[in-house]
């Protein structure tokens, strides 16, 4: 069991990172989208490893089944061939990459400094059947207000998207 989890984690992690890198580097946006989907799916797998079944499902349905579909849509609506022939990286790419790595290094230093301090509690063998209910309770009791605000945010976003996507008359 233990080893199985280990193996699964490594599998998912490698898959996620690899496809993430491919996503950023691909020239073809559609491939990029597919790789991002792969990353998201493996992230979902990691959620499952962390016994967050509900989040696993949310990740799959919302992210992969919803948001990414949107992306693929837009990608197909905008003309690809042009952008595929253009230079993919902007002028500041070198500086940016370097700075990003510096940032990563700082974080790395932070995590490394505190390595081994935090450990997960022993994992129950079968996934606890209560996760969904627990999330629901937290969401609808303690986080009610944020939940409502989030819903309003979604509404606003929807209206905004509709307004922007609408064809201006004349």
């Amino acid at each position, binding site marked *: 069991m233990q080893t199985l989890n280990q193996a699964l984690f490594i599998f998912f992690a490698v898959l996620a990172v690899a496809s993430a890198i491919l996503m950023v580097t691909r020239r073809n946006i559609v491939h990029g989208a597919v790789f991002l989907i792969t990353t998201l799916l493996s992230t979902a797998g990691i959620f499952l490893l962390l016994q967050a079944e509900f989040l696993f499902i949310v990740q799959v349905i919302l992210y992969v089944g919803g948001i990414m579909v949107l992306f693929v849509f837009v990608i197909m609506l905008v003309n690809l061939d042009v952008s595929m022939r253009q230079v993919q990286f*902007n002028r*500041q790419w070198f*500086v*940016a990459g370097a*700075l*990003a790595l*510096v*940032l990563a290094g*700082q*974080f790395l*230093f*932070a995590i490394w400094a505190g390595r081994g301090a935090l450990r997960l509690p022993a994992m129950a063998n079968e996934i606890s059947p209560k996760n969904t209910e627990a999330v629901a309770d937290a969401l609808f009791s303690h986080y009610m207000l944020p939940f409502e605000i989030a819903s309003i945010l979604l509404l606003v976003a929807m209206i905004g998207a509709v307004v922007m996507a609408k064809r201006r008359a004349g």
Partner: protein
Amino acid sequence: MNTPYFLEHIWLIPLFPLLTAAVMLFYGRKLANNIVSYLCAGSVFVSFIFSVGAFFQLVAMPQGERFFTKVLFEWVPAVPYHMFDGRLAQFVAGWEFQIDPLSAVMILVVTGVGFLIHVYSTGYMALEGGYYRFFGYLNLFMFAMLILVLANNFLMMFVGWEGVGTCSYLLIGFYFHRKSASDAGKKAFIVNRVGDAGFLLGIFLCSAVLGTVRFSDIGPALHAGNFQKGDPWLTAIALLLFVGAAGKSAQIPLYVWLPDAMEGPTPVSALIHAATMVTAGVYMVTRTNAIYQLAPKAMYVVALVGAITALFAATIGVVQNDIKKVLAYSTVSQLGYMFLACGVGAFTAGIFHLMTHAFFKGLLFLAAGSVIHALSGEQDMRKMGALSKRIPVTYWTMLIATLAIAGIFPFAGFVSKDLILGKAYEQDVLLWAIGYFTAGMTAFYMFRLVFMTFHGTSRVDHEVEHHIHESPKAMLVPLVILAGLSIVGGLVSWPEILGGNSHFVHFLEPVVGMAHQSRIEPLKGPSSRIGEINLMLMSEGLVVLGILFAWYLYIKRTELPAKIAKGLNGFYELVYHKYYVDELYDALFVNRAKDLGLALGWFDTNVINGVGVDGAGWLTRFVSRASMWWDTWIVDGSVKLGARIVWVLSLPVRLIQDGLVQSYMLFIVIGLIGFLGYYFYLAHHAVH
């Protein structure tokens, strides 16, 4: 004790017409004519039923306390105030319905005659436009009139009073596209305003002197304030109230509107300007008789005005050629009779005459309407004649009505009129003489009307000639019923002398009976039976004489009237033009009012507009110019200066800000790195 149903629900009586009125005025346009007529006539009939019920339940009560009031709700809450004599009083006016013999009679007359006239109208107005509008107004009028007669205080009565005024205005101007009609409506309305002003003042004075506006409190109030007979305050109240009455009931000097009111549809003339509304004044005087009986001078004024009006109107009626005009003036003169009666203290007689008059004058108008209907709109009697064969029913009913109004034995008019004359004779021979003479003239001009219309040779235009036709049943049935009433109407108060026992008078006694409690002696019957008989015989004689005279002039020697007219030319002209009263009023009031309006208009255009408005406008423009200069040079200037400074100072920043999202993000990352580095630095030091 459980109060009788109909008395308990007395307030329903005005409600039914109100409801249908509302329906008519809001939805009537969509309704079919027959539905309209069923609704309206039906509602009036229902309230007639309720009235009858109420009447009988009232009669069922013992003679003494035939009185019942029903307070719907408190309208004006108690407001304390000081009366003239310093006592503290409460000004209370509830929405309070009362019924006593007087009101009972009135609602019977109003709803009964009203119902008949509604039925008649369904026939008469059948082909007119605005059918629903007509009936809506009519029912609204019924409502107002019933409120008027059922009110138990001056305020509520005033509501009805104004209501009927409004409706009469609306109905006179029913053919508003005809200028004369709308003018007549306005005239009626304005003249009534004058009267209403007096009425209002009377009400104020009453509440100030007696401390109440409730009718049923007036008697006790008079007791409490033990007023002497002829108390000046009371006289003043009585006179002011009488002004109102004169306005509503078309007495000198406010009678001028009634003849013009004939512009309205004939049923309106019958209902409002003959049977019900115009008698409101008489009703009001009777209702407040307690005050009048303590103000003999006012009484005398009332009587005098009534008598003079009667004679005056009669003389005008003699020479009129428009059939409705004649009837109108006769109405005025009959109203004069009623006031004469009230004036001589024969209130019951006045009301009695009011009732009989409602019957036969209503009938006269309806019949005249039928005639006009038959002649397709012709009103000029010189264009009539020899119609008796063509429209028999109309003829006979009209003849009956004429006999009644002329006071031929034993028709309704005979009884009531002789009652009045008898009372008048006791009080004052002069008044009696005027009334007596007027009776003769009445007979004369009424029969002149009949003869000119129905007898002699036909003077009808040819194109009209061949479609003269008897009116539809809906119009004839009311005629017949009213004719019947005009015949037997007198029996309800058949004088003792002729072996009757004047029920009606006794029935009304309790109302004027307040006189008994107040300290003036009750009216005593005619001095002696012989006297009464003689009076009757004399009047009958005169009446017959008048009829014969009419017959002689308008059947026998038809050329004579023109001769006579030529003979006393000036006088004839004077009378024919109604003594130039209208012209006089125009000269005295109307034109002056117009002048005032012009003057005010000039003031408005030149002073208010010229100096005020335009001046203000000019000032504003000037100020705004000044402030504009300030804006451009001082305010904007400073702003621009600030902007310029910022522009100069922001040069280096603008170099960094190239508008590319990613470079901004780059700066974010740099900031992040900086923060983290600082944090690590702190942490490092925290360790050591």
